[in-house]
């Protein structure tokens, strides 16, 4: 046994890398494979593979819609483009997941800062598409808000974890101020969907950071009030919500989406045999879930829902055993970001939620957004990396729960 004193980091000292563990690329890969959440990786790859099939199904619809007299897009134009983007996305995913937790945090915060800067520039430099100014054209057109997604959760988690160093820091105020700032920038575009999503991530992180129940209740109240205010102040949202509540007019996009969704029945019409999808605008992005419904059937739709549920359940169950506050917050924030967006999209397709203009992450066609989702998942994998040979020093949830129950009782008696 080694009898020398173990290394204890102290202020001003740097870790001296040990000569004995000189890492080779191969060894690093081995360690990566051991530490990474392989179930999550498998679920994500499965969903992306299914996404490729779904885009193949939806591609003819969009390709035909966008073809002009001069340019005829081949039916599978978007499929091949999607495969290309997915390849880049997977490379990004694997690359990001190879980072150490600290480096992942640094990258996340940097990305957040960069994306926020771009987001500030959008009102000045942005190009307008479909009545909303969301894109910046730097050789390649991209939405800064897409890249803010992976960074935002990490940045908020990082800021919230400052409190462990200095309990007096007003981390909640900083985080909420940041959220407000991002919200204002997004509403300038205007982009209600993204605002809602970022708000959801912020809410989850604030919830996890230990804010009292009363304040959470107050926050929910403010959220409802804010949503009502949006309804009255924001035309696009009002129109969409009116259309949602009033059932819409025949052949608007919501109605078309539902017709497409149900056209295949339980088992679907079969790949490339759907016909309703051809009338659907945005078949390959916002309404790809409906195309899945037509060509693969409602049962597969339910399976997709379960896949997303499996992803978030897997991540959250693992996080429930986490002892690093930053990792816990960042992991929960990132997974909320991905699955939250997926559920908003699915609920829109099922007409349980007003139309939002949001893609189905990991499945929908997208260029920069596929890369951004890849980056999000990569960072999530990096942050949830865990040495399987280390035993947890924190007690299991089972030992906490009764204590918590007692706490609740005490509060109740007061």
């Amino acid at each position: 046994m080694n009898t020398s004193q173990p290394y204890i980091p102290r202020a001003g000292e740097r870790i001296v890398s040990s000569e004995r563990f000189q890492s080779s690329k191969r060894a690093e890969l081995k360690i990566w494979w051991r530490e990474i959440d392989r179930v999550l990786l498998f679920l994500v790859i499965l969903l992306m593979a299914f996404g490729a099939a779904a885009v193949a199904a939806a591609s003819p619809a969009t390709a035909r819609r966008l073809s002009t007299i001069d340019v005829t897009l081949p039916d599978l134009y978007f499929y091949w483009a999607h495969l290309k983007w997915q390849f880049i996305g997977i490379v990004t995913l694997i690359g990001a997941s190879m980072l150490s937790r600290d480096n992942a945090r640094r990258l996340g915060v940097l990305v957040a800062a960069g994306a926020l800067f771009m987001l500030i520039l959008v009102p000045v430099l942005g190009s307008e598409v479909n009545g909303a100014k969301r894109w910046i054209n730097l050789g390649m057109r991209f939405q800064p808000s897409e890249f803010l997604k992976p960074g935002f959760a990490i940045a908020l988690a990082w800021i919230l974890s400052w409190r462990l160093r200095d309990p007096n820091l007003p981390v909640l105020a900083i985080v909420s101020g940041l959220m407000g700032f991002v919200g204002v920038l997004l509403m300038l575009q205007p982009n209600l969907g993204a605002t809602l999503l970022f708000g959801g991530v912020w809410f989850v992180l604030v919830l996890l950071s230990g804010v009292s129940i009363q304040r959470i209740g107050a926050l929910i109240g403010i959220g409802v009030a804010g949503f009502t205010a949006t309804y009255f102040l924001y035309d696009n949202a009002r129109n969409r919500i009116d259309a949602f509540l009033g059932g819409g007019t025949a052949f608007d996009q919501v109605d078309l989406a539902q017709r497409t969704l149900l056209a295949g029945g339980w088992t679907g019409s079969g790949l490339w045999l759907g016909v309703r999808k051809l009338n659907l605008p945005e078949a390959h992005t916002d309404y790809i879930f409906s195309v899945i419904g037509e060509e693969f059937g409602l049962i597969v739709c339910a399976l997709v829902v379960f896949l997303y549920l499996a992803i978030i359940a897997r991540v959250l169950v693992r996080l429930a055993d986490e002892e690093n506050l930053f990792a816990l917050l960042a992991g929960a924030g990132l997974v909320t970001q991905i699955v939250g967006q997926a559920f908003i999209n699915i609920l829109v397709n099922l007409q349980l939620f007003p139309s939002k203009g949001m893609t189905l992450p990991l499945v929908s066609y997208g260029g920069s957004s596929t890369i951004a989702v890849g980056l999000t998942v990569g960072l999530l994998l990096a942050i949830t990396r865990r040495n399987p040979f280390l035993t947890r020093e924190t007690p299991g949830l089972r030992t906490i729960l009764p204590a918590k129950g007692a706490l609740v009782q005490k509060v109740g008696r007061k």
Partner: protein
Amino acid sequence: MNTIAVNTTFSSGRSGVSTLRKRSITIARLRVLWVAIIFACVASAAVARIGYLGVSDNTIRTTSLADALLPPRGELTDRNGVPLARAFPAYALWYNPKALGDPSDPLVKSARDVAVELQAIFPALDIEVTAEKLAAGRPGYLQRRVLPEQANQVMAIGELALELPRETDRHYPQGSMGAHVLGYVDAEGQGKVGMEQVLNDRLTDPALRGEPVALSIDMRAQGALEDELRRGMLATNAKGAAGIVLDVDTGEVMALASLPEFDPNKIDAEGVNYMFNRVTNQVYELGSTFKPLTVAAAIDAGTVRDFGRRYDASPVEVGRFKIKDSHFIGNHLNVAETLIHSSNTTTARIADELGPTKLRQAMIDMGMNERPYIELPAKGHPIWPGEKWPRLRNMTVGYGHGIAVTPLHLANAYAAMVNGGVWRPATLHKIQPGAAPKGRRVFKASTSSRMRQLLRMIAVYGTGKNADAPGFRVGGKTGSAEKPGKGGYRQTTLVSTFAAAFPMDKPRYVVVAMLDEPKGTTASSYQRTAAWNAAPIVGKLIPRIGPVLGVRPDTSRDIDLSDLKPLLGAE
């Protein structure tokens, strides 16, 4: 071990932060479960919704892409495929004051200017009323049924508030022709009155509405019938007219008209008044047209065997009631003379000899005691004398009084009388060859062939001369019945009917023409009786419809009358 010891000494210096860390982690770990529960709820809502949508009938309702291409309501055609009712994609002129975003100032130009421009396109539009509507700023229709070129002109006005939504409308390309057969479609899209009502489910069924429904009507015969009836009605200042052309072997209605008619393209208060169908809904005492039916029943029962036998033609007295003829015909009349000169007295005696039981049974066999058999919703119930007929009632029924039926009843009975004796229900559906209903036998074939001779003789020698279109071998019987009014029959208000069949050597069609309260005019030689108004209508109609229905005029053919002809004028 000392490792742990070192660790504890290290953290004891910052115990506050450590507890905070532990507490934060514990809370966060617990609340992670909350988040998981929230997401599980959302996911189950989504799955439940998928299940709900999957079992709802939306799936079936929305699958058929062909729905959009099919007419919203199936077409109706005549028996040859000529469209009688079709879906017509029209425009409407809708005023949408919100189109410019500001409902308080909906128009670019002034309301009056726009109204003037609209009036130039739609001359029927009132400028003042339209300007008021435009200025009021309430959304609404300004005009229904806008033609494409008119729509273009409206677009050229350049007012966004004038919208031209496409609306599918029901259009009857033949105008008011066959209105009572077709009916119309109301604002809610429900068929009314005629076959539109009868076939409502069939015409709106997504699986079937792509196929037009063929009616039994022949558009050419229908047009001719309406034309001749209208002419006859106007010439005699009659209140109304009714007519029907019936195929004797299948029961198919080739034409059916009730005048005055309505225009299914434009339903207004006046049109609603005329929706009453005189052929199937109104019951009349049809008078002398019943006499051949009585004679046929008597021949069939064997009470009339000898056509040379003469019956006493003096007035019949039953109690205090006296049956007379309209004028003196002769002291004694045989059966042929009875029909040719339409004698009430001898018919009453023939009916008396036949007896009420047998005559009543013959009438029941011909369906005179129930509503007529046809698809149309409006069917009148006959005024039926009931169970036990006294002697007088038996006699009056014999010449068509004391019983009121629709003209359709009469046409059906005549068809059975001339087609060999088989009664068949009338239908407005086109019947495929060989698919005619079997029907029920009411007369012997020999009776039927005897009746053809007698009916032909009426048209050749008797009151039906005006209906004898050359070459068409018409046979038929007139009927001029006084309409019952307050305190008995009114001698001046008549119902004139002519019930005919042609060609009598091989009858194909029955034609019934009826005028309601014709007046004596120059056109009818100041006569009110059927011989002068209803019979000429049939005489002019048959040459028009015969050729289109497959009966060619042929003067070299006729039914053999040689055995009965010597009986005429023997006295």
